């Protein structure tokens, strides 16, 4: 199994883990992923709860036969697309450069 790492690999991982670069990468990743997860879960559950227990609000007509319930559903699609796009932007600009640098360091260290 290649799942077992060599001592050299283990040391390289440990060293990288201790660097400021890595701590910053982890902070930036979690700083986006965790709040975003909480946000979309709350927003989705709000939708589920409204569908169940706020019938008066959900049936409010907006335009023609389009009511709040329908719009709320469409907004769930929109928010999903939006969060996905924001994460992609964040990952490209704030995560990938550090991750790439650390990956290179690891390769050099282990190749020696």
């Amino acid at each position, binding site marked *: *199994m*290649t*799942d077992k*790492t060599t001592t050299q*690999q*283990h040391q*390289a*991982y*440990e060293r*990288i*883990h201790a660097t400021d670069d*890595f701590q910053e*990468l*982890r902070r930036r*990743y979690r700083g*986006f*992923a965790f709040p*975003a*997860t909480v946000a*979309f*879960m709350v927003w*989705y*559950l709000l*939708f*589920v*709860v409204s*569908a*169940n*227990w706020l*019938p008066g609000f*959900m*049936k409010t007509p907006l*335009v*023609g*036969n*389009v*009511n709040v*319930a*329908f719009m709320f*559903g469409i907004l*769930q*699609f929109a928010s*999903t*697309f939006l*969060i*996905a*796009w924001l*994460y*992609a932007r964040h*990952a490209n600009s704030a*995560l*990938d450069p*550090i*991750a790439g640098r*650390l*990956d290179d*360091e*690891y*390769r050099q260290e*282990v190749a020696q």
Partner: protein
Amino acid sequence: MTGTVLAQGQQGNQTLTVTLFLAVVAVTLYITWWASRKNQTTADYYAAGRSFSGVQNGLAISGDYMSAASFLGISGLIALYGYDGFLYSIGFLVAWLVALLLVAELLRNSGRFTMADQLAYRMRQRPVRTAASTSTVVVSIFYLLAQMVGAGALVGLLLGVDSPVLKNGVIVLVGALMIIYVTIGGMRGTTWVQIVKAVLLMSGTLLVTVLVLMKFNFNISELLGAAANATGKGQAFLEPGLLYGAKGFLGQVDFVSLALALVLGTAGLPHILIRFYTVPTSKAARTSVLCAIGLIGSFYLMTIALGFGAAALLDTTSETSRIADSGGNLASPLLAEAVGGGEGSVGGAVLLALIAAVAFATILAVVAGLTLTSASSFAHDLYANVIKRGAVSEKQEVNAARIAAFCIGTVAIVLSIYAQRLNIAFLVALAFAVAASANLPALIYNLFWRRFTTTGATWSIYGGLLSAVGLVFFSPVVSGAENSLLPNADFAWFPLNNPGIISIPLGFFFGWLGAVLFPDRASRDKHNELEVRSLTGAGAEAAIQH
């Protein structure tokens, strides 16, 4: 279904449909043969040499995910229950954010072929692999049943025959094809089948959607109004409550339970997880999910038009309604026929046959993905690492996977023949509940919790799995109600159809409890390694070159 004109129309239609079915079969078999020439190593067989691009994999993920339950089941539920059917698709889409934000990239960097690889990285191999493999096979079998039941119903409609012998024949045929794709084509063949299917499905759905919207001058409000009128349910058809609200408070809690399983299940579905291994980097895994979110989101938006369109244009309420009789599964194909010109017209026949072929391709692609997933887990986790403790050659391992695919396919065929009365979207919801309760807690803890241990991992998987399956067993799904699997028995004490609201917290609870009661130094020490590897890709499996 009487009258000679109808019968003749149907005959022409049958020929056309069967021809298109055979075309789908021929194309997919060719792909399988072509892909098989490159299958040499385990990385080829399980992960297609990690050589697919992000966009290709995004298409394949969509092809793997948008099952017959999406295509036939959701539009059918909308056609019958209006707004409440639409609730399904929202959960199915939002769920992808869990995969995007928390799972896809980290998993790509830290695993090799199966879901268990990622756990085995810092845990004791044998117990976690056994557990993860068990839940992989259970989830995949639930999901497989849903797909194959859909295949039976579909062909019954297309040939205008309601013969159990024919339905069973179709199930056997689909099963045989999926066994061929998986044993010969491996992941590369399966992926291409899924890509072709995704393109067919998106094009077919777009075509019918445009034709439906044309009838309503591209005015959504007009479409909704027509659906509300035609069903005789009025505005209630456009509001929540017809499906879940009708059963009072319990129905509402059941709905919350379903919603949780849908949103948390996707990122724990083994057949989705292993797709992330088919790309060369974590960045490509991210692109795959972004692409999949775009495709799947657009598809579910279109199912709104299909579902409400079927409600507006077809008979969904009368005693003789074929849509109601099929639990909604026939709404999309019949709608295609109607917007193509109606029953008996050439356009109607062509569209019906076309959509049927798309649905057929859909089923084939998804069942292949599921069979490959179970076979991979069986061969890689159980056979190679648990039973043989890693002492197998790549060739032996791939052979074991092929034999496993054959056995799993056969079991699925036999089980499907007995599960034909259940709505397929509902069967899929059960698979999601197990994935959310058993797999997701272990994956999340493993990635983000330093003190997680081997015992925690096995307890969360077995705890979540047994809670979800056990609660369903004692629910009205299995006994005690008119539409239960065993309508004549009654041992149901759990009132909800969906176990998620209890079983998901239980999965997380057991994982926490196991880790706290049995601390384990080795898995804690490996967490730094896993963190670096999952976030930076350092030391991750690379693509192989041919």
